[in-house]
């Protein structure tokens, strides 16, 4: 049995311990907001928080997260109320939207450690996450908007 927390809820599972956290989240826990993009820590679509730190869930097996706290996009808010999620809608960021859960999780970790990042800091922090529709400039604007809202 492996046990860990997802979005505050304790999970106990007898799934194969080598199962990737990403695969567990999506196909067993049914939390499909976290996406598979590359399996190689190159795209960031699978980004979750592990004990508050942004992590590629495609790089962790469930045995490696025994006793840890996982937060996914579904744990960000009940209904999209997180300032970043609201900013994503306000700025009309997504196109295909496939990468955006990962982008939001990555940005959330930034604002937790650096509530008022500069444009350069945002770009360099977000560099782990690919967007093939290239919504990059709107992502920067949305992070800035959320940062303003969170600090006001």
């Amino acid at each position, binding site marked *: 049995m492996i046990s860990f927390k997802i979005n505050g809820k304790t999970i106990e599972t007898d*799934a*194969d311990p*080598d*199962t*990737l956290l990403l*695969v567990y989240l*999506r*196909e*067993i826990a*049914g*939390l*499909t*907001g*976290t*996406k*598979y*993009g*590359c*399996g*190689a820590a*190159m*795209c960031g*679509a699978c980004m979750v928080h592990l004990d508050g730190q942004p992590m590629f869930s495609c790089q962790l097996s469930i045995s490696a997260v025994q006793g840890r706290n996982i937060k996914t*996009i*579904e744990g*960000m*808010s009940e*209904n*999209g109320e997180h300032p970043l*999620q*609201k900013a*994503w*809608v306000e700025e*009309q*960021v*997504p*196109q*295909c*939207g*496939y*990468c*955006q*859960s990962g982008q*939001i999780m990555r940005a959330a970790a930034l604002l937790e450690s650096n509530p008022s990042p500069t444009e350069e800091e945002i*770009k*360099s922090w*977000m*560099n782990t*996450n*690919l*967007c*093939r*529709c*290239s*919504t*990059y*400039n*709107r*992502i*920067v604007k949305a992070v800035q908007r959320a940062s303003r809202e969170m600090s006001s």
Partner: protein
Amino acid sequence: MSDTINISRRFFLKAGSAAAVVMATGGVRMLAYAKEDNTEVFAGWVEVTPDNKVHILFPSTEMGQGSNTALPQILADELNADWDQVEIKQLNKDDRRFGNPAFGNILYTAGSSGVYAYFTILREAGAHLRDMMRQRVADEWSVNFNSVIAENNYIKHSSSGRQMSFGKAISLPDFSTTALRSPVVLKEKSDYTLIGKSIPRRDIPDKATGRAMFAIDVRVPDMLYASVIRSPVEGETVESLNDEKARGARDVVDVITLPDGVAVIAKTMHASFVGRFSLEVTWTETSKYRKYSSESTIAEYRQIARSEEAGAEWRAVGDVKSALKNADATLDAMYTSDYAYHAQLEPMACVASVDDDGKGAEIWAGTQTQSWTTHTAKEVLGTTEDRIKLNMMQMGGGFGRRTELMQNYVRDVLLCSKAVKKPVKVVWLRPDDLKHGAFRPAAAQYMQAGFNSDNAMTAFYHRVATPSVIAYFNPIRWGQVKPNDVVSMRGAENKFYDFDNFTAEHVITERHARILPWRGIGAAYTSFAAEAFIDEVAAKSGVSPYDLRMKLLRNNPRGTHLLKKVSEMANKVPLKEGRGRGIAFAGYGDTQSAGIVEISVNESAGTIKVHHVWIAVDAGKIISPDNAHNQIEGGVLWGVSASLYERITITNGLVDQENYFNYPILRHDMAPKIEVYIAKNDFKPKQVGEAGNPMVAPAISNALFNITGRRIRHLPFTSDNVKKALS
């Protein structure tokens, strides 16, 4: 074309009777039918229900382009619907009545065509239902038709102040046989209420919460997972298979040999991977594609481009051959480009549940075409259309990747599900998606220009040596259009310029790899060659690249406006030390785009950085300006990514790259600042989604010349290619 539709006869009939027709511009089209319950269906495009909701059919599929909002917006405007009461319904069938007129009524989402192709049909549908409700309510109130209006889901009679909801109007007795007594007139452009407004996209809130469902996210009861190992080279099959370990692995249910692969089917996704990686497979290794490597392919295409081999004429003005022969001077150059990969973030994935008799299926797929996904299922199961139930999922990027006639990711899941008699999900791993991808074709383009004794250009000759993309990915279509391949050739028509003598032709070369449409299709490389060569012509003529383009645009006021505009925008920003700018004028289809880029180059490293892009676009009437802006920005950055990084190489039939670490695409830190100008006018709507990228590569190459004095004539401008160009 008139904006008035002539109605041949009463067009709205009860269910059970023959469907009605209207004479619309261009011919007769099935438009209307009614359902037996109290719900009226107009042409199936729009349905008003007694609860005063408006349900609008979305005939395309959504891959990020935003037409899921923009198309219903067009119909809702003409209907004078209350946008908040509009619900959007995905078309999940190969129902050609709703097909894309730009593609012979195939259900096909490509070529940035949704808005322009459906614009009139959607307006007609909205206007018809609007006027039917006006007529029926006017009759009910015994007032004149012209005295009632439709507004925000209500029919209103202004002089008496009476009003009735759409929901009540369609519930009036005999509504469905209401006869219109005057022709339906489409709105004046000044009366648009929704068209031209930046209405928030309907799909965006779910994309900020992770709730948006893609094919890869679908889970159905009792679903199994299949992981497929595919033959490394096209056309090869399994020679021997040892699946002992896979069959003994925990949770593995079955191992199935597919036409060009082996699938391990398991109760969990994890087990399907474990099983798949334990397979020992040898392949026939007899494919002719093992002879081909990208480098030798491009060398071969170069030879053909420069040869006398006849090409299929794509567009011609005057007599380019005589003009070249009679020219006082000539200039020529060879431009080449590599294969490129779509790199959409959602890899190929599909879920299907095949019926026990093997002749029917429910399918959850993200593809750009209901028609060809249905075709695939019919072919694979040997069945009829009525046995196929589609669920068209939104896509994690399309870009042309999901357009084929025969979709092997759909085929595989059907074969797996049929074999195990359970629903199955197939997800391609990224290396599968890349190594078994289908690419923007490699191309060689031979450019020639002729000049008179004043060094003014008299001839422009553009020969494109590349395979036919359509012949490969859709042989049915090729039968209809041969030898005109818009996918391979778009952009080369160069129709925005006024040339005295011009020819573009397609020398159709042998295909050496799987190829598909790719964002911008042909314009992604033909505009590179044409617009970089225009700068070479300008240099030879001793005029500035801007002036030469202005001269070529002399009979094109909309184009002239864009070139002036983009130049003004860029001139407001002082050029920084150590940087240079390049200009290009391209576009996509009927949409014109003028662009300027500012770059710097590290000559010893061979790296280019794009700092700033200005782009001016005229796509006619814009339905949703904010979304258009986002699409154009995305297109520009696609062009930057394609120019700087993107290259598929093939060695003896095997794709060399496998993931984003050796097929890099643009990341946050390299995204330049972009300023977008979109012309405001009331011309017919045209293409937006692919209007941004074609001008980028030539503008960067022209900027590189302006800094270094050296031309780069091979796409992409990776450091090895830049160093070669500079040496």
